[in-house]
């Protein structure tokens, strides 16, 4: 298949402006004649549905949760980047653009990323206008902090609940449109197939999760904003319901799937507690502004800690190895996520892990230095220039509580340990997926009329996403890109008229979904859906996780193909199709995860280089850093579905051209 990214000509800083000026428009009187479906109500979906509703289109929005406000964007903690340069520390649109391309290890499209940086400032303006209560300084202006992979302070935040506040902002805009009747909301509905008519996306089949009824919904364009696929690993920081089904269904209908092996493993999550663990919890990257990561220098100290004979607070300063500060002095604890995760794994593999679980995997995130520093500053600010040690500690802890209070509380709830007194134990966990449905500059997939936004697409983060950039991308796509590009597409649809749901295409799609559901319910297998999902997760984590190699990937491909056969033969799905049936929902999602898992391993196998989150053990330098191969792998891999056997998928390549940034080895030292 020939891939046309539709990147406009011209200088990087002018592309989006010039392009927008020449896009086709739909006049206000024609917009009510046009229907748009938006699937997913996270930052990208809610902002797209709200904005398209405001413009006057008929929008139908779908989410599987009981309310659009629950989408998993809500769980984002640390912040949102924007090139406002309010801190006067050298930030600019170019700098944000450059940091994002570099952070993504030169595997993202220049034009898309520059557009993202251009609209980043508008996002903050828009959110403040909506009443999003960002953190402020005493002068009443917005506060900023730093995130990984940058040397400026451009991250806007609301305590450790930035995603919540931004999503509730988008939800309020969406709610306003629902109240005005311009958006019709379908809660507890899940999209189970895309309907194509004459090659164009014309609607979806959705299941009402309460009644089990299959519904046909038609539209002139379909927007997929259903998030990432981290749950392919079973254990991840994603919500339990997060899934790839919508993205996978459109893939099966002709949308290419790009860079599936690019997965972000986040360095600071709470370690696994045991076999019944259902999900992993993130401790925000913002904590790396204040926390220092270390393990014991000596293996015997690590062992003593694991056995409970030694407390981390008893270990002398010179016996601690602050391995990020040691290896990457220029960025220290604020190196990008992939770098930090691999460094933690390296130390634990070498026997310095501190957690007493099956794998001994865990490192410390220590706030004691920050408590002293901030405590002294706070005492000075109060006019006390000679504070006692106790006063300093008290004020320092107060400062931490104000900055990160909810995170510290969450940590204590889960682990039963007090992070103000003893360092947090953390370990990397699956968090975000840079890969996703392939889209062009318009965010349109290879199916005309089917757009993909937010984490569900592949477009902006290359092989590694920088912290606080997911929220930025979700809102950029929904508020400031799709309203233009979707309208451009719809300009040719004003004469189409209402699309019937009685066509053969809708009937066939509905029947296919019905048959799949019936097959699962009548399967009479012996094992639960979770049983298979956990096994898939283990294969993925061990062989397609933080470090990959040829042999492991080849094994993973075979093991997943075998697991697929066993799943269809032996899965047990209780209950019936005409009721709320969470096990059935899970079965339908896991079926797609199994397919995707295999494709991820295939993608990782063909990419004979290390870049960003994709670390192939065969391709590293003498210091264990990633070795990119720009000559042979400077492309987006875009996979084409060829039927039930995933190993038959065809690899298409979109060449990446860097015209405005000079490619270099990524260096954070």
């Amino acid at each position: 298949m020939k891939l046309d990214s539709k990147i406009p000509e011209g200088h990087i800083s002018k592309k989006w402006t010039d392009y927008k000026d020449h896009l086709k428009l739909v006049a206000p009187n024609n917009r009510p004649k046009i229907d748009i479906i938006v699937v997913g109500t996270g930052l990208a979906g809610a902002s797209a549905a709200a904005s398209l509703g405001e413009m006057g289109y008929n929008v139908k929005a779908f989410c599987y949760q009981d309310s659009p406000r629950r989408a998993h964007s809500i769980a984002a903690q640390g912040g949102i980047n924007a090139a406002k340069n309010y801190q006067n520390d050298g930030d600019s649109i170019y700098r944000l653009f450059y940091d994002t391309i570099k952070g993504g290890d030169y595997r993202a499209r220049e034009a898309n990323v520059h557009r993202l940086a251009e609209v980043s400032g508008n996002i903050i303006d828009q959110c403040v206008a909506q009443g999003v209560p960002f953190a402020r300084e005493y002068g009443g202006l917005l506060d900023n902090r730093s995130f990984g992979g940058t040397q400026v302070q451009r991250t806007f935040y609301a305590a450790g609940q930035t995603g919540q506040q931004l999503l509730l902002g988008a939800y309020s805009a969406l709610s306003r449109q629902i109240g005005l009747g311009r958006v019709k909301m379908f809660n507890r509905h899940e999209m189970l197939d895309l309907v194509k008519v004459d090659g164009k996306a014309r609607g979806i089949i959705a299941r009402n999760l309460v009644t089990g009824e299959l519904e046909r919904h038609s539209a002139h364009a379909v927007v997929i904003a259903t998030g990432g696929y981290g749950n392919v690993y079973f254990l991840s920081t994603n919500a339990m319901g997060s899934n790839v089904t919508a993205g996978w269904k459109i893939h099966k209908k002709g949308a290419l799937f790009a860079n599936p092996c690019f997965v972000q493993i986040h360095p600071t999550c709470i370690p696994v507690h045991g076999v019944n663990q259902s999900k992993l919890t993130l401790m925000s990257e913002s904590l790396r502004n204040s926390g220092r990561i270390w393990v014991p220098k000596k293996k015997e100290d690590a062992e003593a800690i694991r056995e409970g004979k030694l407390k981390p607070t008893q270990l002398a300063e010179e016996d601690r190895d602050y391995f990020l500060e040691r290896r990457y002095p220029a960025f220290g604890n604020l190196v990008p996520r992939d770098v930090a995760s691999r460094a933690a794994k390296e130390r634990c593999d070498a026997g310095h892990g501190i957690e007493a679980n099956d794998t001994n995997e865990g490192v410390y995130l220590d706030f004691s230095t920050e408590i002293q520093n901030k405590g002294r500053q706070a005492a000075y600010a109060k006019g006390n220039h000679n504070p006692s040690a106790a006063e300093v500690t008290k004020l320092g802890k107060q400062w931490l509580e104000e900055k990160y209070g909810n995170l510290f509380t969450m940590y204590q709830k889960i682990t039963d340990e007090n992070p103000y007194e003893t360092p947090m134990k953390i370990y990397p966990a699956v968090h975000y997926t840079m890969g996703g449905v392939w889209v062009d500059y318009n965010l349109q997939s290879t199916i005309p009329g089917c757009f993909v936004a937010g984490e569900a697409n592949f477009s902006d983060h290359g092989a590694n996403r920088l912290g606080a950039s997911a929220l930025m991308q979700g809102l950029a796509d929904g508020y400031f890109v799709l309203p233009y590009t979707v309208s451009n597409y719809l300009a040719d649809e004003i004469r189409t008229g209402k699309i019937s749901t009685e066509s053969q295409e809708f009937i066939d799609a509905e029947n296919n979904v019905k048959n799949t559901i019936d097959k699962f319910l009548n399967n009479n297998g012996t094992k639960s859906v979770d049983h298979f999902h956990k096994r898939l997760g283990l294969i993925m984590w061990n062989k397609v996780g933080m470090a990959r190699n040829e042999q492991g990937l080849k094994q993973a491909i075979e093991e997943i193909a075998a697991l697929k056969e066993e799943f269809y033969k032996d899965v047990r799905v209780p209950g019936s199709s005409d009721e709320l049936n969470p096990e059935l929902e899970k079965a339908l999602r896991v079926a797609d995860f199994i397919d995707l898992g295999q494709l991820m391993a295939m993608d990782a196998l063909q990419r004979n280089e290390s870049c960003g989150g994709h670390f192939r053990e065969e391709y590293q330098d003498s210091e264990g850093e990633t070795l990119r191969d720009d000559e042979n792998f400077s492309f987006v891999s875009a996979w084409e579905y060829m039927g039930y056997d995933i190993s038959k998928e065809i690899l298409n390549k979109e060449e990446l051209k860097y015209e405005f940034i000079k490619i270099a080895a990524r260096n954070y030292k």
Partner: protein
Amino acid sequence: MSSAKNININLKIWRQKNAKAKGSMETYKLDNVSTASSFLEMLDQLNEQLINDKKEPVAFDHDCREGICGMCSLYINGRAHGPDTGTTTCQLHMRKFNDGDTIFIEPWRSKAFPVVKDLVVDRSAFDRIQQAGGFVSVNTSGRTMDANAIPIPKEDADKSFMAAACIGCGACVATCKNGSAMLFVGAKVSQYALLPQGKVEATQRVLNMVRQMDEEGFGNCTNTGACEVECPKGISLENIARMNREYLKASLK
């Protein structure tokens, strides 16, 4: 985490086939529950056991499992979100229970939150209240004024944020003897009332949201304060007082 141990427990759980069916409490025995597990992981374990015994698993709402999406609910041993204060059910851990305990699990009980199935209830009334006025009427443009154009006192911004931290779980309603939604609505009204951006529509907002709240069948507030005690996010009663002031102001206009 290293101090985790396994306990055996008895469960009494509300089972109800659908909205129309009559429900009842059913008894289950569950062994070898790790005290490091979350409450919902314990329910996962029960469901795995039920599926293996060819029985119907228990339906319950949950999603993020990190205390922020507001989807989980459950009345546990007579308390919304269980025995731990300032905690959603998904962040409640089994170390709060002892070997041999009998744990009662019921859905939210409120007229405005009808049961859908087992422990799952319909909270869409909250969405409709929000749709009636819980927003600032600003279209997407990217051409609003610069975000720093209006300084907002840190204290006001912080208070607004604390109100906006509501996760919309409905514990306040479930725990209130009157089934009142005043804490939820008060928090939303307060978030906007404390910000200059929210002041323009303040009158219409509070009137519309309160009207919708009444139409949904929520009860009145009699200042018992149970909502504040059980709110997993510590939303303050001050927000109800602020809403009452806003409502009075709006009514007199």
